[in-house]
């Protein structure tokens, strides 16, 4: 069974960080990534220091910018893409993100709940005074 000329891929998977293109295209990818990341970082610092924005929205805005920058790093530096040969890497990343979400959100939720249900400090001292 001879291979058809269109089958240019010599292998079926891409490693994380792998990129199937020529050197110049690879460098331009890094430059785009650097520009985007620098822009997002600069925006983060500007958002944190300016008085022009609605204050209660600033923390959420900063989180969105950070997540966007992590995405830029993943795509342009680690080359985790949605390409068909990248499925394994994306699946591993998705599972990792699930665990990260569970650990952080779960900890915050449980600890906030514990704090809310804790007996206030004053009543604790009052209890000990009664003895």
């Amino acid at each position, binding site marked *: 069974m001879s291979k058809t000329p269109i089958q*240019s891929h010599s292998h*079926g998977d891409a*490693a994380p*960080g792998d990129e199937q293109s020529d050197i110049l295209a*690879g460098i331009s990818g890094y430059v785009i990534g650097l520009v985007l990341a620098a822009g997002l970082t600069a925006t983060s610092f500007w958002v*944190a220091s300016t008085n022009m924005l609605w204050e209660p929205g600033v923390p959420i805005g900063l989180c969105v910018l950070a997540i966007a920058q992590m995405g830029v790093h993943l795509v342009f530096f680690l080359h985790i893409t949605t390409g068909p040969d990248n499925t394994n890497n994306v699946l591993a*990343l998705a599972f990792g993100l699930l665990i990260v979400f569970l650990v*952080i959100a779960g900890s915050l939720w449980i600890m906030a709940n514990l704090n809310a249900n804790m007996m206030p400090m004053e009543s604790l001292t009052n209890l000990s005074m009664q003895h």
Partner: protein
Amino acid sequence: MTTATASIQTPVDPHHLGRAGGGGDETPGSGAGGPAPKKIVVAYGFWIFLLSDIIMFAALFAAYAVLKNATAGGPITNELFSRTTVAIETVLLLLSTFACGLAAKAAEAGKRRLAQIGLLVTATLGVAFLVLEIIEFAELIGKGAGPDRSAFLSAFFALVGCHGLHVAVGLLWAGTMIAQFKAKGFRADIMRRFACFNLFWHALDIIWVAIFTVVYLLGTLP
């Protein structure tokens, strides 16, 4: 016969990855093609390690977020952190990651001197980052805001210190790579090692993005 097979296979396997080919498939990593190339397997394994490392950082982030207000009457975030230092550290690490990527491209092209220079720039920027961080830590401890002061400061030093430790290990690794390029050249195993280093260094920058946002920027809001 060949053209008929190809025309049948095209809709089943539009990207020609060979996953749908069945027993007659000769693509490595699927069917009768045998295991995937070592390059793929090694980088994938290292990617799994990096994800587990990121999960460990998630636990440290969770601890920090929970203990942020447990200052025990000690200094709070706004009194401790300087945005200027963090901005410089961020720029250093970002440029370092960029240089690392360029070094990888140079190594792919077989240009040893360029790859070594790229790695040297990477490591120099990394050292500058680490020096700034150590100065910051020393100042904090000098002000009486060491990790023993409050639960908040313990969590802070654990989180940022762990990242710094990773950077220090990465620097050691970068130095090793420069030496191995000289001693062993672009052998297949050295290239795999370098690909892993590249992934490691980029992942550290991703974690730093989370640190400078959560710890420093959110901690110094008015």
